[in-house]
């Protein structure tokens, strides 16, 4: 079938060329390829256009390093982050004790306490032991860490040590151990002094943990019960210096009250529940300058803290209290605490200063109205709480402050200012609550099975070793949250193939991974503040990527849309082309067969 066929009319040709020529089954000319060529070329050009079309409807997705994200989270899961710590034990006044033996005993004790499991944010410790005998001669373990502080033998005098105030002892120990290089982690030291039992009476063993990174155990006759002493030394190392003296289960590391941008806003509110009875005001500016500024400064490596205050009125609590005849006061119980905070009336407000994802911790001083004054908190054991306050993790704390005189003297409300002494007390309670929010104890005593340890409080709210613990935990928490955030992001991105991912997100993920890597390497080198800051950066970048505004714009250009837009054109056209090509191909083969039969016929003829 080709264009020449209309020139040679088969009906006239049949008689002319060959006697056997049958126009129904044969043809004399070669079938043409022109039409077949046209239809197939159109078909092929359409097929070639498909990838281009596919490319044009594709949405932009910045490539995310999925593999790196997975490996980061695997790494954090499998090998918890550990910081190098140096534990140095000095035994003064001990005869005939081999330092290496002591070292291995302490090591055993520590291993027993940590159960060989390495928690995230714990110490990768090295121990050194110095024994100073009664003649002030020293023997040391071979320090395999050259940067370790060296204890100058004989500086601690056996019988003069531990006399006087604990604070001065702490300061003197700081002088003793000064000159420690802080290159590879922090050095914590415990001094055990075996005193001469001078007056013969059984002296109590006294264990004190100082404000810096030193602790001391003083007692007499320690040589005899030295197994006990070794256990206590290892306990100080693990429970206090490594874990910050906190109960493992009390507040989990997940609840680090620091915003993902590394900021905390402390919002203090003084609530006058009924100003018709009395109105109290405070001078918070002074409190801020005098008492809170050192705390915020001390915590600067962990978080950037800002302080705000306000006074609110007409803010009743939403739980009930009952009159207790015996105590001559109104009491509320611990079971009422979930209902104490009245979110309808206490417009504590989020702060405009806390932009982005800062954490706001609310600290509320509640002044009860005349109808419920004095208001006391009863503990489950029937006792009255001494602080009259409670905390709510990740939210903040509430302190109930009762006015001195609960009688309303006159019709008109009295306007008072909380006295500086009372304010000081309130701030002390607040600091205790603040410590609790960070997972520390508010008490100055740490008790374990082996005895009690006195912990010297710092005027800055947090001691140096506590800050070390915080920065270790904080780094660990940041890295953990960074890896979970990135993990969720990668899962989300992989589950939604039609989601647009901008380059910014890709960059943020990349930098976040970089910062996380840096934090890990800094941590293993013992750089506490550098690892804390880079882990903070990693977390905030990861959160920025996850909460990027564009991530919500899942493309509405769906497959359905694609079909709806393109099918009216492509369906009929493609049908035309495919059928035409098929028909041409069929026709060509038919005609070719015809031609071939004619050829064979001609040959045979």
């Amino acid at each position: 079938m080709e264009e020449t066929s209309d020139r040679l009319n088969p009906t006239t040709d049949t008689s002319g060329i060959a006697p056997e020529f049958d126009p129904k089954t044969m043809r004399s000319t070669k079938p043409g390829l022109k039409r077949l060529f046209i239809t197939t070329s159109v078909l092929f050009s359409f097929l070639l256009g498909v990838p281009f079309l596919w490319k044009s409807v594709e949405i932009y997705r910045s490539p995310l390093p999925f593999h790196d994200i997975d490996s980061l989270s695997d790494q954090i899961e499998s090998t918890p982050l550990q910081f190098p710590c140096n534990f140095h034990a000095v035994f003064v006044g001990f005869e005939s004790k081999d330092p290496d033996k002591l070292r291995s005993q302490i090591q055993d004790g520590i291993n027993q306490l940590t159960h060989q499991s390495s928690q995230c944010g714990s110490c990768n410790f090295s121990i050194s032991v110095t024994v100073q005998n009664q003649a002030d001669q020293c023997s040391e373990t071979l320090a395999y860490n050259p940067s370790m502080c060296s204890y100058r033998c004989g500086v601690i005098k056996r019988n003069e040590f531990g006399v006087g105030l604990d604070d001065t002892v702490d300061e003197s120990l700081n002088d003793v151990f000064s000159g420690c290089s802080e290159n590879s982690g922090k050095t914590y030291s415990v001094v055990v002094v075996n005193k001469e039992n001078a007056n013969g009476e059984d002296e109590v063993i006294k264990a004190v943990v100082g404000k810096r990174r030193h602790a001391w155990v003083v007692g007499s006759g320690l040589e005899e019960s030295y197994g006990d002493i070794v256990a206590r030394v290892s306990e100080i190392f693990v429970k206090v210096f490594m874990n910050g003296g906190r109960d493992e289960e009390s507040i989990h590391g997940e609840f680090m009250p620091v915003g993902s941008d590394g900021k905390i806003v402390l919002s203090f509110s003084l609530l006058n529940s009924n100003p018709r009875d009395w109105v109290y005001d405070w001078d918070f500016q002074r409190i801020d300058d005098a008492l809170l500024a050192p705390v915020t400064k001390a915590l600067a490596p962990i978080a950037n803290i800002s302080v705000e205050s306000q006074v609110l009125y007409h803010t009743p609590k939403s739980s009930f209290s009952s009159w207790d005849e015996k105590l001559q006061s109104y009491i509320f119980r611990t079971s009422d605490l979930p209902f104490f905070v009245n979110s309808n009336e206490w417009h504590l407000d989020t702060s405009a200063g806390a932009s982005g994802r800062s954490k706001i911790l609310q600290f509320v001083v509640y002044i009860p109205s005349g109808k419920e004054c004095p208001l006391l908190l009863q503990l489950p054991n029937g006792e009255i709480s001494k602080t009259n306050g409670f905390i709510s993790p990740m939210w903040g704390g509430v302190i109930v402050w009762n006015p001195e005189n609960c009688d309303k003297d006159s019709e008109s409300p009295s306007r008072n200012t909380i006295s500086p002494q009372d304010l000081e007390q309130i701030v002390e309670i607040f600091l205790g609550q603040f410590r609790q929010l960070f997972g520390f104890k508010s008490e100055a005593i740490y008790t374990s099975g082996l005895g009690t340890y006195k912990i010297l409080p710092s005027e800055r709210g947090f001691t140096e070793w506590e800050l070390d613990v915080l920065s270790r935990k904080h780094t660990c928490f940041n890295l953990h949250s960074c890896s979970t955030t990135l993990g969720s992001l990668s899962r989300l991105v992989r589950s939604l193939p039609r989601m647009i991912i901008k380059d910014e997100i890709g960059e943020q993920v990349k930098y976040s991974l970089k910062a996380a890597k840096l934090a890990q390497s800094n941590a293993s080198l013992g750089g506490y503040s550098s690892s804390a800051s880079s882990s903070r950066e990693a977390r905030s970048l990861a959160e920025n990527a996850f909460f990027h505004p564009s991530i919500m714009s899942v493309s509405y250009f769906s497959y359905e849309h694609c079909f709806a837009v393109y099918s009216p054109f492509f369906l009929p056209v493609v049908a035309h082309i495919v059928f035409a090509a098929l028909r041409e191909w069929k026709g060509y083969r038919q005609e070719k067969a015809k031609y071939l039969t004619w050829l064979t016929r001609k040959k045979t003829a």
Partner: protein
Amino acid sequence: MASLIRSWIPLLILQSFLVAIAFGSKEAEEFSEALLLKPLPDRKVLAHFHFENRAPPSNSHGRHHHLFPKAISQLVQKFRVKEMELSFTQGRWNHEHWGGFDPLSSMNAKPVGVELWAVFDVPQSQVDTSWKNLTHALSGLFCASINFLESSTSYAAPTWGFGTNSDKLRYGSLPREAVCTENLTPWLKLLPCRDKDGISALMNRPSVYRGFYHSQRLHLSTVESGQEGLGSGIVLEQTLTVVLQPETTSVETNMQPSWSLSSLFGRKVVGSCVLAKSSNVYLQLEGRLGHESKNVDTEIEAHKLWKNADFDLSLKPDRVLRESSSLLFIFDIDKSSDSEPFDLGLTWKLPSKWSCQQAPLQATRFLMGSGNERGAIAILLKATESQEKLPGRVVTDGRCTIKANIFQIFPWYVKVYYHTLQIFVDQQQKTDCEVLKKINVSPSTDKVSSGMLEMMLELPCEVKSAAISIEYDKGFLHIDEYPPDANQGFDIPSALISFPSHHASLDFQEELSKSPLLSSFKEKSLVRSYTEVLLVPLTTPDFSMPYNVITITCTIFALYFGSLLNVLRRRIGEEERFLKSQAGKKTFGLKQLLSRLTAKIRGRPIEPPSSDSPAAQSSFLSSKLIFKIILVAGAAAAWQYFSTDN
């Protein structure tokens, strides 16, 4: 959830500090509340709540506060706001009956919806950014869609037409914003007593929102301390103006209705907010006793003022002040208590009639023209009766004139032709130079910025009416830019007419008065009035149109393509031959024509109907059917594959 501090051990040895806290030595934050009640000539009552909160100059703004709302202070600090006014309004102020020439109306008669203007204290280049951030912050603070003012098409930077001359001023309004309790509650949250106590306890939501007019306003301004190293102070003024209709039992129609606070609001005042420095209720009676003697010194005459033949007050006012044409009764609500609530009532005994002072010109605005293509906006200024009596006429070159500023924002889709501006004074067209003193035009840019027109007219004093008209074309919006319910039409924000040579003030000659309300009345305020909001219907497309267009064009393309392919491919001669052979068999002319037609349409030769056996036909049909079924199934499978894949 709450864990306890179980015991109290003096944990931290805090440096003891002894500070003599002397609040008297430094200026403290101050709060005052006031309520002004005013019977209106059209048998309604106006209630104007006024709260003022002052923060003295300090460096701890945004951080430590006692009475002043922390949120506002942080806003001021963060966006460096110098002055700002935000108003939420429902209903229109009736200038004719409710007055147009007193401080109350010039400050509190606001355009419908939300109006926001702010002056910033930042470099010129950062003003727009500050504005955008401020709109978002306010939007969150007041639960309103103020953030729509963020887009550069919705706000303008007036130069002189707005009254406040500053190049760091931004102005925007949202006429369609619905105002309700969700806006009032955050506004009340800024007051120290909220609506728990004091005058604000009267704000019973149903009665407040039942009114004819409701305008809630927040105005803040910073006061420079003038001292080096000390921050500036902030004055926050919050007002709520409502016009209510007292329920009347009297049958006489010309009698003014009697009312009391409890009948208006359904609540009583049981005492002042204890935190307020002053809390007063004022009752203003206008147009009364102008002819009587000025001195009210004696007790009897004072008594006469509040219990006389015309009306009775249920409570004795603490003081009475008078202005040229109005009386002001002052009540101190400090004395009220739970047992003795403050419930001021006014009982009219005789029918009385008075009128309010009106602005020199009364403005209305309307649309002209029809159709969806073009139209014209006209602003009509009509002289009021009180025009002659008003001060503020300016005599220049021997002619007495009234100055009027017109400030108008046009959205970009209303494309105004500024050359078509026509001004008619007393039905006679005037050339521009005769009456137009000053004009400032900033044309709109499509989808980028809105247009703005500022005009200063100088009209002769004896003018009866003046009209300004300007023509416009309606623009086309992109399909994405239409708001929901686009068929409702688009709003053109109110125009602002202000009279720069007229200033309203009420001076009660009260030298002792420290009341912020009275002192704000005393300040000379520019007389201004807002016109109506215009509703412009634009051509709204059928929103399914893109798909229709796609389908139609695609079908046309497909047809074209298919026929082109057929032309290239088909063999006309062969088909004709075939048809000829068919024609040899059948001689019916009509049938031949039909078959030729069908052949043409189908694009392939038709088989002679009798030649094929029914079996062959059925098998052919079935194979075709099977092919079709396979095709559809394949498409379905592919579809299934792709749709489950994502």
